[in-house]
């Protein structure tokens, strides 16, 4: 029974590792300028966690195999080095490991969250509401007009509560239901929630950030590959949460310029 259990633990440990080693379900492709830092950090962490996982499970299995059928007269043996040896090993091995992960991980995190967006970054405002995203581009004046909560009206497609009659800055604002961005240009995303918590998650872009009602949050990133990707909501926002999504289209600068012109004409 004990030996079978030990073998089962080994088989489960190996079976668990196979999809990781074989990349059966890989991370989504990376289309961002900072993503490689996250991916390298992920790979390093996977190596360290993987070794810890396999070593511990295999040791557990080995000890169960070896010590579960004692003979009469067997004496208890102490682990070489005793508890102090294990404590020192934990501090040295795991301590070094987590310190390294913490320091390098902070660097990857800082590349997204602790740097200021470039002054010439493309400004886009995202608004999340139950259960759709909308995006606003500032138009030729480069300025967003203010949001008037009392003027938000989905029936007449005023998703942002823009007052084009009175607010000069709003007159040329462009509102869209999909998000298009130019490739290799930094994007400065200003995130506003109109009702409850939502999140902006594009796995390929290696960004995830919550929308916080009452607190506008900003995020910046640069996409490096032209293509169409999905923006999904990851913060439970109500019954339609699973279906709250939009598309992100990464376009060449020319295509992006043409798209903006086309959208401006539709306003």
């Amino acid at each position, binding site marked *: *029974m*004990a030996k079978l*259990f030990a073998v*089962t633990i080994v088989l*489960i440990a190996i079976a668990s590792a196979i999809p990781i080693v074989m990349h059966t*379900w890989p991370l989504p492709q990376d289309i961002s300028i900072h993503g490689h*830092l*996250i991916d390298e*950090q*992920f790979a390093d962490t*996977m190596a360290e*966690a993987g070794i*810890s*996982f396999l070593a*511990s*499970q295999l040791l557990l299995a080995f*000890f169960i195999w070896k*010590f579960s059928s*004692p003979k009469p007269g067997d004496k208890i*043996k*102490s*682990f070489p080095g*005793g*508890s102090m040896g294990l*404590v020192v090993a*934990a*501090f040295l091995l*795991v*301590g070094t490991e*987590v310190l390294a992960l*913490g320091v390098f991980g902070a660097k990857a*995190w800082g590349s997204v*969250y*602790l740097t200021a967006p470039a002054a010439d970054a493309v400004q886009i405002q995202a608004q999340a509401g139950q259960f759709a995203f909308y995006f606003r581009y500032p138009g030729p004046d480069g300025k967003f007009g203010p949001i008037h*909560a*009392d003027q*938000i009206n989905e029936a007449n497609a005023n998703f942002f509560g823009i007052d084009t009659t009175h607010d000069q800055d709003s007159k040329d604002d462009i509102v869209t239901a999909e998000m298009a961005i130019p490739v290799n240009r930094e994007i400065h995303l200003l995130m506003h*929630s*109109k*009702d*409850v*918590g939502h999140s902006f*998650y594009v*796995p390929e872009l*290696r960004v*995830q*950030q*919550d929308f*916080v*009602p*009452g607190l506008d949050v900003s995020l910046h990133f640069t996409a490096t590959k032209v293509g169409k990707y*999905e923006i*999904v909501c*990851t*913060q*439970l926002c*109500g*019954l339609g*949460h*699973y279906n709250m999504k939009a598309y992100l289209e990464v376009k060449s600068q020319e295509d992006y310029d043409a798209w903006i012109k086309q959208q401006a004409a539709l306003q």
Partner: protein
Amino acid sequence: MHDMSAHAAQHGAPTSFIRKHVFSLDHKVIGKQYYALALIAAVVGMFLSWLMRIHLGWGNFAIPGLHLLSSTGAPGNVMTPEYYLQLMTMHGTIMVFFVLTTAPFAAFGNFFLPIQTGAEDMPFPHFNMMSFWVTFVAFVVMVAAFFVPDGPSLGGWTQYAPLSAVGAVGGPGQGLGVVLWAASIGIFCIGQLLGSLNFITTTLDMRCKGMSLMRLPLSAWGWFITSMMGLTAFAVLMPACILLILDHVAGTSFFVASNLVINGQILPHSGGSTLLWQHLFWFFGHPEVYIAIVPGMGIVSHVLITNMRRPMLSHRVLIYSMGALAVLSYMVYGHHMFVSGMNPVSAIAFSFPTLVITIPSTIVVLIWLGSLYGSKLRINSASLFSLGFISMFISGGVSGFFLAQPSLDIMLHATYFVVGHFHLVMGVAAMFGIFAGTYFWFPKMTGRMMNETLGRVHFWLSFVGAYCIFMPFHYLGMAGNVRRYQAFTDDYLIPLIPVHKFITVAALVTGFVQLIFIYNLIYSRFKGPVAPSDNPWEGTSLEWSTATPPPHNNFGDKMPVVYHDPYQYSVEGASADYIMQTSPEKLTNPHEEK
């Protein structure tokens, strides 16, 4: 330490049925009541998970009779999107609070902490009785949400504001459903506070002669450390629940910011903070993870020692490590909020303690492994579940390396990776701790033995089944599979649906396996063979030196005197393989914990 004679007549043996079985002051009856409540809650929680998993695997499948549970939530027996979320909210809440907190801590702790400390009862028996009955009321209030119009809340067990605070306009169940949720959890907190107070006082003030703190078994240490966490964590959650209720019924705006618009209407709230709820909730929520798992660590250590016929490599290092986990658990809660909109610098500040908490966790695992080395391991249902606990704790623990880092949380936050992580490390591991405790202590609690063959079948299928369910969750998360979705309609999620179907089958099978345990438990309670002795596992701690089941005041006429550290197994030169704590035998070479 406490002079037992002063408390010997604290409360006499009950004579009426109600005092004996319903409003009992006896910690042992209260422990069994908690166990029964946790068992009922676990059956409800597991049933809900079946419904959820069937829906995730085969969304249009009509589950026969489901409309009886909710005609609006399951018209034609097919679950609506909102009903999925409502069931999910109730599954998480019931499992975390009424099973994982209630069984390992309140049930086993109530029954065995006073006995292991050598006390005749807890110091505040009326508070103890209240703690169970308010917990029972909390459960009734929680389940009542199924029967109100609109049903239970759909906001998840974390009840993030402002969705939880805006009222019915937020969606089905967000009005009365949330109020019932918050009221239930607030009441639950009262029960935990009263229980924790009793546990702490029992440990500090009720120990028998000779029982120093370091002579307490590791299970008692697990409950003691947990009770200190309980006293501080639930004291934060309770006011948070009160504030949430006030946002619903008194027009306050603690958690709702100004100018929020739902259904074209500006909400009549202003000035609240969205993130305040998250800070309060996770200040409770992360210690809660350890409230669920530290009693399990203590229980499986205790069970393993008895079955390894040796003490742990270091009693003291295990205790200090569990204590370090408890202290650090308050400093790490912000790792749930890396991408919440909190200042990104604080993400780094929360990341380091979260990484550091892996050190005491690793020490605990290494001490377990190092103690297995050179032991004389006995295999039975209790020791199998204890070893399974270690395997699950390792598997669930290593994914913590990822989630402790904000840069990786960008990818993994709110995905199935997180769901896999916490289900293994606090769900399955804690459940295995409950099972280990049940198979081990059942003879002492009931006077009868459980069926060992059924216990082993239960173990094998649960062990393999749990891995089949929860390991693939990690792979889904790495592929970006978002959690809390009732269907996977996104282009990149559709290829992952076959994995969900596999998980659903595994969950249904593993769930059915638990019926073997329930059968074994109930059958053995009434028809199981009578325990062959007061000490069937040849243990050393005080619960094995009293009658089976223990008398009303735990030790009869003669209160125990303790002469030894708790785990005197395989002592060289001793008269037997094990020397009980109450044995006055002088040992020339005892295992000592200085």
